[in-house]
């Protein structure tokens, strides 16, 4: 189970990410938003295993933004993270409407470029802590 503080953190980031993705809004900076979702969430969440378990991520996302969520751990080398993200982002096109992530700084550096190189851009990117970055990419 996740600690309470982290629950609150996920509630904020995923609610904001989902609302923005679903409404087509865009923002350079993170923002709180009401979850006025117009369509059912079909979301992909990337995460690095050091920051939590898949079941925790799925549970939190379903609590805060109900829908169909799939959590993908980024394992292996940073090189693999790059190619895995490119593949997941490409597969998500047309199949998902939300693409978010909770990753460490090194992984973020790679994942960011993978999404950009796949033609993607971002609703927001936030360093929540020194060792944890959250983001929501546009689909």
């Amino acid at each position, binding site marked *: 189970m996740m600690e309470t503080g982290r629950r609150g953190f996920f509630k904020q980031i995923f609610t904001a990410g989902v609302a923005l993705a679903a409404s087509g809004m*865009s*923002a*350079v900076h993170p923002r709180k938003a009401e979850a006025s979702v117009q369509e059912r969430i079909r979301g992909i969440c990337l995460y690095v*295993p*050091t920051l939590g378990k898949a079941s925790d991520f799925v549970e939190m996302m379903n609590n805060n933004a109900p829908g169909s969520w799939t959590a993908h751990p980024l394992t292996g*080398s*940073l*090189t693999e*993270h*790059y*190619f895995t993200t490119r593949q997941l982002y490409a597969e998500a096109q047309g199949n998902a409407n939300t693409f978010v992530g909770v990753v*460490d*700084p*090194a*992984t*973020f*550096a*790679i994942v*960011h*470029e*993978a999404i*950009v*190189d796949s033609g993607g*851009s*971002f*609703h*927001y*990117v936030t*360093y929540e*802590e*020194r*060792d944890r*970055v959250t983001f929501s990419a*546009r689909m």
Partner: protein
Amino acid sequence: MSRFIALPKGVSEQTFAKAIQEYRAILGEDRVLTDPASLQSYMKIMIPETEELHKPSAAIYPRTVKDIQAIVAIANKYKTPLWTVSTGKNMGYGSAAPATRGQIVLDLKTMKKIIHVDEELGYCLVEPGVTYYDLQQYFRKHKMNLWVDVPAPSAMASPVGNTADRGVGYTPYGEHFLVSCGMEVVLANGDVIRTGTGGVQNSTSWQSSKWGYGPYLDGLFTQSNLGIITKLGVWLLKGPPPGGYMPFLMKFPKVEMLADIVKTFMPLRLAQIIPNACVVVNAGWEAAGYFTYDKNGKGTNRSTFYKGKGSLPPKVFQEIMDKFKIGAWNFYAALYGSPEQVALNWKYVSGAFKAKFGNQVQIITEKEAKDDPIFEYRRQLMMGGSTLQEFGLYNWRGGGGSMWFAPVAAARPSECDKQMRIATDILNKHGFDYVSEFIVGWREMHHIIDLLYDRTQPDEMHRAYQCFEELLNVFSKNGYGTYRTNTAFMEKAAKTYGPEMRKIHRTLKIALDPNNILSPGKSGINLDIPL
């Protein structure tokens, strides 16, 4: 409120809107972007300055040389500066963000043609959006036994971008500008020139003969804002036969051994017994690499070992070295050729180090390294493979701040030792760690220091800026130039090369780009700023 997130200096919103309209007329709506979300990726900087200073006004994506000619015509008409990137992976040097606010990012990643690969002579001609990985895939697909020398972000960086910034790699072709051959460049007035022998009608040697006739121009378009490179020739290595590549690592236990390490390998390097751009890596850099590979699935970084303020004490550094079984210095190099040549050269190399260091050196070859991830990362780099493992550095301290401080040292033992001591003192004084590698060129070292800091902490941002500035000043006073720098310090680095150099750079800029539309601020060349 403006409908643009930033405007070029001195350009009104109305004028900028007209310019955007004209860009869209030639490129289409989807290749001229001004919305905040699309531009956000260009603001992912790692330097200790606010994103506001580097915010672009737009991003445009040409596909052809003709597109670029049309773009520079509009840029001249409306004075909208263009910050050119190839794939924009200059992480630690400013990423893809413009040097100054309001420039339009001219993103060439959409120009992705591998125009020609010549297996017989080992060269290729590529556009700016082609990555090293694309080339490797091409070789594989066409069953070509060719290697391309790569920088650390090989999987996503481009030969054009890296060569244009005079980047380096790790094979015998590690000096990228040296192994480039022939450029096509669009000038600010829309003219297209081909350097070297490229101007000869139906040239048959554009990628095989570098110099052409008359003054050699290619250097003018590296680390510069005098033209836009649209094609580049790159020399490729022939892969050695089976058994003809031998990467190795030598670990040394004490920081004070650096001078003796240099003294031992430089004769071997100069004799081409060690032919590649080998590296001497310090413990901080080496330890950072292991973060991602904790086999228990647990992150181990700097804070695992030290929670205090300031730089890591020597005692903690020793703990880290013991934990990861790494040296205070870690020398990675490789031998190439026929198996017989490699075996013979290995006798010279291992013999020289054993004679000098006895049991103080630990020698690791592929056999001993087994599946060690950091050895594998170096093995890949020294054979032109794709790896992004270097970016594990960003987890070592966390917070997303990184600046490469990159002074050059003559490859003498005393110079390397002196640089290491000066850098360590300054970094530690500001509360940062010395995290470095020396990349060994022909007769010089690129001393690459990663100043890692937390961008989420204003105090660390401030200290990082002050620290980098002091490094630049003190190194300069000691006669050490920096070979490359980030966008926050381009103006200051340019000053260290003296007023005459600045004057000639400016004279060239006025002659070739009088409206200052090409990447103003690159390498400190900017007609908007008086000398």
